């Protein structure tokens, strides 16, 4: 359970990656890419978050139980977001031709 000591350079490397990604996301947000802006920004955020979880929070060394709980947290939030959105996105749909 007690975690191994991670070399400082790993932490610094992760830090550098995080800063680089922050700069990247700020820069990209200034360019008009339509809906892709949103997708890119979120992808970068997810990457950054995962880096923190994986290295800083030592999930890379953790038991599978911990990993399960971490995964469950994000999964449940997705359930919330997806099902709420499912209502809003499909409200405008017209009832199609009677398909029965």
């Amino acid at each position, binding site marked *: 359970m007690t975690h191994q000591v991670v070399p400082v350079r790993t932490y610094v490397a992760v830090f550098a990656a995080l800063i680089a990604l922050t700069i990247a996301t700020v820069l990209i947000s200034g360019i008009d890419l339509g809906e892709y802006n949103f997708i890119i920004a979120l992808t970068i955020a997810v990457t950054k978050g995962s880096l923190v979880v994986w290295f800083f929070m030592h999930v890379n060394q953790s038991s599978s*139980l911990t990993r399960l709980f971490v995964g469950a947290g994000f999964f449940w939030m997705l359930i919330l977001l997806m*099902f709420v959105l499912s209502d809003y996105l499909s409200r405008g749909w017209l009832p199609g031709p009677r398909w029965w």
Partner: protein
Amino acid sequence: MSTTLPRPETTERPNYLNVDYSWKSWLFTTDHKRIALLYLFSITAFFLVGAVFAGLMRLNLLFPDGLFEHDTYNKFFTMHGVIMVFFFLVPSIPATLGNFLLPIMIGARDLAFPRINLLSWYIYIAGGLFAVLAILKGGVDTGWTFYAPFSTTYSNTHVILAAIGVFVSGFSSILTGLNFIVTVHKMRAPGMTWSRLPLFVWAHYATSLIQVLGTPVVAITIVLLMLERILHAGIFDPNLGGDPVLFQHLFWFYSHPAVYIMILPGMGVVSEIIACYSRKGIFGYGFVAFSSVAIAVLGFMVWGHHLFVAGQSMYASMVFSFISFLVAVPSAIKVFNWTATMYKGSITFDTPMLYALGFIGLFTIGGLTGLFLATMAIDVHLTDTYFVIAHFHYVMVGGMVLAFLGGVHFWFPKMTGRLYPEMWARLAAAIIFVGFNLTFFPQFILGYLGMPRRYATYAQEFQVLHVLSTAGASILGVGYLLPLIYLSWAWRKGERSSQNPWQAKGLEWEQSPTPPPTFNFDVPPVVTERPYNYSEEVEVGGY
């Protein structure tokens, strides 16, 4: 009735009750068993408050023109719903029986975080005080569902106080859940594998998952509601560009899973009782255990069935309806397995068993009528009528409350070291069963006839059925009073119990003294057999 009771011991050995009698030793205890009792008394008090509101409501509904002011009646059902759901039923089994038994059942000396356990009780009381304050200052009239924009803009009652009460008590629920999850994962005795966990523990584990994952969402929703009520920034107010249906989504994201917080622990209790009084292991142990988890997980994806007529997209409704039927399958699995457990058993009918059988019957009716409501075209007619009221009282009162009473009787000797008076208890169980059905069955009919809920006054033609219902409630009220009286009496004066009066299986009966000492066991328990191992002989091979 087990007849071979050993003679009561004359000198009491040290147990969790007699170690110390001071107030301090109760209010600062970290012993899960004492905290369980603190909870037991507090939820009983809240139940009585909720029940008085119920009685006043039933009184009002005797007459088509009502008896009280409309506003008064509206406050009655709101306070009844809020108190019963958040301050009675959600903590009822988990925080009392669960708190008391879960560590003992898995062979632990306490919950993983005893101080957090105590903290959770204080938080619960703090939340309860806000609710009581809201009542004393004149009450709330939004319905327990707090729908916006009525609650944010139009109601001029003490919404914020009640909301704080619910918000605060939510954390007590979260902390209990957290404690249980960690305890089940990390504190099991040697040999207590997952496949040997009592079903009670499985049910509580599933419940805890819901508490931990669902409650924070309702908490934040309530924060938004309060902020909106103060600032009127419009987040749920259509006149300011907000969307009131969003509130309903966020509310039911918790509150549907919450109904499973209000049934799963009861199912756990019933599994224990049926096994004990049939002298047999639960048929299909693995399925019953796993169905609890399945209910907890699937239960998060059905909340939209409360919004079929609320302006939700028809396609979303369709998905929610479908998953609602899916979540009924694990419930069905449980009902059938309990029934099958009795097959070729050796059954006795002590009070807990009566309650358990009552539970199966009433839960089945309540659950099946849930399917009516999950059927979209039917729900259009039935939503917001007394049919819904009847449905959820069948599952919550006929289900959970009966299970709670059954559990309290079953483990009463464990908790107090004394036996309850069996004849009185059976009588009370019978009265409750009759009173309950008389109260709530007519409401199914009322609902299909079109009687809307939350009505202080109603059309003449509904009166007969309402009178029947009130008559039932009076009987039910008597039925509830009886256990209150004879259990209090038995606590002090009852016959002393042996360690295992029902000759039940399980660590709590077999390896822990009755009443248990502070750290539950004299010798650290070791588990060597499957659960409910009433008989060594096996008829049909496992699967």
